[in-house]
């Protein structure tokens, strides 16, 4: 689960990382009040769960209430990469001397937390990584041992940091690791970590936050977090989360239900060569009659659907039970859309029989391509 910038800043503050004075506004009136308390100039930052906000114009400075009103009004009517702006973070304007980058993620291949720092913070950090790798330093942690200040200092010294800046930045980096660890984060990032012209707050200010929490760990985090479903903008995707499946909304007209992400992606790849997927629903390993009933309901919500393609295997999943759910849905709602199902593995014969009883076109051969041929026969070209 991705956190909003302002939520991350609150978390940074709770572990003692220096952060700007700020407030969150849902209206221009709120923003005016907050700015009044902080004092002008203030920075207005659109809160959206997507990267590249700054380059897209979602961050503006206001030096007077009048300017703030204008900017705030614009931002609240703004969309960034298709996402509406519902909240603004209003914060003090930092007196920037330099900008650093600090980020922690899990390296998938080594299976270790990796701490990345750079003297060139800001929006272009990935480009810096490519063009000036000497300005980036990284450290792979032992997940059992953790990450200690001496390791942070060794890392930061590779960037040439020294004196108070060295120990202060090391302190922040260790606190960022604490966030990473206590919040089961996949990403914990401060970009930029601002070095101020003044000594205020120890001379450092974390003016942005990126925190993504591992969904599998949400229930064990000892911190009040919002509901995961609240922050899914797409209503169909939200419903998918609610019933416990992965649902991705797409632009086409063929509904896809698959068990397993890999099989689902392969199915999309095969279908996508000739037809356009409307969505992609991956059941995971928890198929029941009830679940597939709900999956059908969700997939069919998509308007202009021309057909449904079901691709499931009986390994951990009792696919015969799932088939019962599909057929029950078809009967309850008199579904007339063409449905093609490929279902193999444990209980396959029983599953075929159930599907056929509901008018589903069953394919019994292994290659998904053959089943998609069948689908193509039924619906024709796009």
């Amino acid at each position, binding site marked *: 689960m991705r956190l909003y910038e302002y939520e991350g800043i609150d978390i940074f503050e709770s572990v003692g990382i220096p952060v700007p004075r700020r407030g969150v506004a849902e209206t221009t009136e709120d923003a005016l009040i907050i700015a009044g308390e902080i004092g002008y100039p203030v920075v207005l930052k659109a809160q959206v769960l997507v990267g590249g906000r700054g380059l897209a114009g979602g961050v503006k400075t206001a030096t007077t209430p009048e300017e703030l009103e204008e900017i705030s009004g614009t931002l609240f009517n703004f969309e960034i990469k298709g996402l509406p702006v519902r909240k603004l973070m209003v914060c003090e304007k930092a007196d920037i001397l330099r900008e650093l980058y600090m980020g922690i993620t899990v390296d998938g291949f080594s299976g270790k937390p990796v701490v990345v720092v750079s003297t060139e913070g800001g929006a272009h950090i990935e480009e810096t990584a490519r063009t000036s790798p000497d300005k980036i330093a990284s450290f792979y942690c032992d997940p*059992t041992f953790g990450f200690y200040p001496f390791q942070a200092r060794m890392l930061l010294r590779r960037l040439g940091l020294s004196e108070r800046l060295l120990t202060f930045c090391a302190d922040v980096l260790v606190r960022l690791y604490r966030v990473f660890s206590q919040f089961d984060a996949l990403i914990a990032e401060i970009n930029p970590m601002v070095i101020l012209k003044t000594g205020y707050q120890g001379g450092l200010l974390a003016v942005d936050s990126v925190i993504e929490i591992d969904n599998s760990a949400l229930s064990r985090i000892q911190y009040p977090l919002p509901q995961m479903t609240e922050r899914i903008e797409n209503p169909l995707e939200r419903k998918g989360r609610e019933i416990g499946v992965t649902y991705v909304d797409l632009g086409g007209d063929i509904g896809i239900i698959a068990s397993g992400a890999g*099989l689902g992606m392969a199915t*999309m790849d095969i279908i996508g060569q000739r037809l356009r997927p409307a969505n992609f629903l991956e059941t995971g390993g928890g198929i029941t009659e009830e679940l597939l009933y709900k999956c059908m309901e969700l997939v069919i919500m998509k308007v202009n659907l021309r057909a449904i393609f079901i691709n499931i295997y009986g390994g951990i999943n009792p696919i015969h039970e799932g088939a019962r759910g599909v057929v029950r849905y078809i009967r309850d709602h008199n579904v007339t859309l063409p449905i093609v199902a490929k279902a193999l593995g444990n209980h396959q014969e029983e599953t075929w029989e159930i599907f056929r009883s509901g008018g589903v076109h069953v394919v019994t051969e292994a290659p998904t391509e053959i089943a998609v041929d069948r689908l193509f026969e039924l619906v024709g070209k796009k």
Partner: protein
Amino acid sequence: MSILIDDKTRVIVQGITGKIGSTQTRWMLKYGTTVVGGVTPGKGGNTVEDLPVFDSVEEAVQETGANASVFFVPAPFVLDAFYETADAGIKLIVVVPEHIPVHDVIKMRAYALEKEVLALGPTTPGILVPGKGKMGIMPGSLFSPGRVGIISRSGTLSYEFAGILSEKDIGQSAVVGMGADSVILTNLPDILKLFEADDETDAVIIVGEVGGMQEEKAAEFIANGMTKPVASYIAGRFSPEGKCMGHAGAIVRGSAGTVESKCEALKASGAEILKSPIEVIDWTIKNDIH
């Protein structure tokens, strides 16, 4: 000698008293696997499918001579069970459950390396050696004995490939599910190494998917001296891009992780790229694999 599972493999099932644990134990026994017992803390003394259930792995090992374990343990308890199993001296662990926190997985991975345990998963269908046995959830009916090895990041997609091959009477030497999570307990090149060394395997299929660096690293291994033919399918060509926000991952990974980068790396290493699963049939014909 097949890889991972052979005549000496004695399997215990952790979480054997749960619904999935008991069902899958039945399927494993039916497939001919030497399952010797199960473990569920607090349920010691019971039996499931006529197998003894123990409170601890230590006791299970002492009483049954078990040397391999397959997990159907609820996600929040997997880390604890993993430590217990490694401490009890078991050297092969298959972690079937999904939704295990990544921060737990990285601790398990470090522990496995320290204790020299070969562990697969999480979110793996397990291992199946046709005609010998299976640890996990792979549906036995789709597999047949033969000389092609399959390594897959996806469970159901590994069934798909085995199914396609079996329908054409091309059997498998072993099918290994690595696990679908972003961090897995044993990396792809290490499994590839087992197949390269296995005298019952003639060729290997890698079933990958978008994301991560496993396939790129596998390509390095292949380029550095894999002698057996390799074919690879990478799923996710038409998948929508994630709304990635953080830079850290991108900095660490560089350009790796896309279907293109994986296919390019594998192609450069000498592997055959399959654009669609069904192309695997042509590959076997071309390479005279049967």
